[in-house]
């Protein structure tokens, strides 16, 4: 294996591009990010990194806007994220100037994925160690959520997670996401919060939630709003647990 994992442009005999696969491992070292798409709202939730005492917290951000109607959450190498965000922002403005229309979410996702793929096929470069969740509304009002990974692939999702413990969060989303939740803005936001609570140990203080509604700019939820939601969710969980206990006692007797 070591003969085929040093150069990005070399396939192994069984078809692996090890540098790309290693880049996907780098993504798992980043903290969790979750995205949920509703019918009228899109939500991004991220696990906030603990900042050092003397560090300015506002400079450590996992959610960035690309344009007024597009934003992105990412997981992986911090520096790679900065480069991709800068490229994407320039592309959004370039598109506006050239075509006189804002980018569609699919267009900017495809652009980011193309940049990433180029770095998997160039000599002397390494892939970006970054996965991104890109969300927003197209000019026709359609909400979208896309995910890209270091290989340069991209897909649309109803709900997805990236970063550490992404598998656990994705399984939670698969179990709980349905059309009724997507129809309600409040339930969509709650689903993102519940999914994050599966892996975030310290509750609302370690979370950042961003929402975007049709024709509105990105809004970061305040700490007390998130706190209130988490308290409500925990109360609901407790009530459900008590109901289950009563049922179990009832069936035992």
């Amino acid at each position: 294996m070591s003969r085929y994992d040093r150069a990005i442009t070399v396939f192994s005999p069984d078809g692996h591009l090890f540098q790309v696969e290693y880049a996907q491992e780098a993504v798992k070292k980043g903290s969790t990010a979750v995205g949920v798409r509703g019918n009228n709202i899109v939500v991004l939730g991220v696990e906030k990194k603990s900042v050092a005492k003397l560090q300015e917290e506002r400079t450590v951000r996992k959610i960035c806007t690309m344009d007024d109607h597009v934003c992105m959450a990412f997981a992986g190498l911090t520096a790679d994220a900065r480069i991709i965000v800068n490229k994407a922002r320039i592309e959004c403005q370039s598109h506006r100037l050239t075509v006189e229309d804002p980018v569609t979410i699919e267009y900017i996702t495809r652009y980011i994925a193309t940049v990433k793929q180029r770095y998997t096929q160039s000599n002397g470069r390494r892939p970006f160690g970054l996965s991104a969740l890109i969300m927003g509304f197209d000019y026709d009002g359609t909400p979208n959520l896309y995910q890209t990974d270091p290989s340069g692939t991209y897909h649309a999702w109803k709900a997805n997670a990236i970063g550490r413990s992404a598998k656990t969060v994705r399984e939670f989303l698969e179990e709980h996401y349905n059309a009724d939740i997507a129809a309600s803005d409040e339930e969509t936001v709650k689903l993102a919060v519940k999914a994050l609570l599966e892996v975030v140990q310290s509750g609302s203080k370690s979370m950042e939630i961003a929402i975007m509604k049709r024709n509105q700019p990105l809004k970061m939820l305040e700490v007390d709003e998130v706190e209130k939601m988490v308290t409500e969710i925990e109360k609901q969980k407790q009530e459900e647990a008590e109901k289950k206990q009563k049922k179990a006692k009832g069936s035992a007797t």
Partner: protein
Amino acid sequence: MAAFFGEVLPVISRAVEDEESEDEFINPEFIWKPSDDSGSKQFSPNWLVMAVGAVPAGFLQCHMELTNSLGNIVEINDSKEKTIIGFYSSTCGKVIYCISSTYILPDKLWCLIQKVFEVVHCGENTQVCLLDADTVYNYHTHSIAKLSLPFLRHLKTSKHPDVPDIDALSQPNMAKGLTAAVMSYCQLNKIAAALYICYTETVLPDAATLLAFSKLTGEEPFKTSKVPKEESLSRIKLYLQSPANNQTLYI
């Protein structure tokens, strides 16, 4: 030298004799550095608990804080005075905790083990508990997708009683490094020892990986029945927020 597929292979020229550099392998010398209180005495604990690696060390440090373990009693340093293993004692003196976060070269392991057991005397009733961690990608199984991460596996010497709650480490998976060397020593010297390996997505300590060891907290030597679970969790969070765990490379 360029190979057929465009990769560059390092080739050492046989025409030139390399001069011996200062970085060449030097015979390992491990030095005891006792704290002022312990002097040069031997320890005969009921339990020897050794944590190797960042994740087990984090769990053990949290546990030691909860049980108010005595301070550092002795260290093993290498020839450059870098700490290889730190030893700590519980307040009752029945448990010795060892923490090692340094990578030790395989050819130095046996010397190190001899040094450890020079001072820590394991009698008939002494049990050894080893904690280690590895990434799940080094775990060989038919289907990784079916495993819920993180998970624990154990290995034990023939003198150790059965471990019912945790699955055994199955072939072809192997224990490696310092913990494997200690297990070999214990098996040869008929000491009851058990090794618990935590397989995680990442070997960086985070709440999920540290809590993976919580399966052990119901049994000795980690039983802390007087400490509520919330305090354990808050200790873990404090540990994870410490400067050692704060890094900006990944976001």
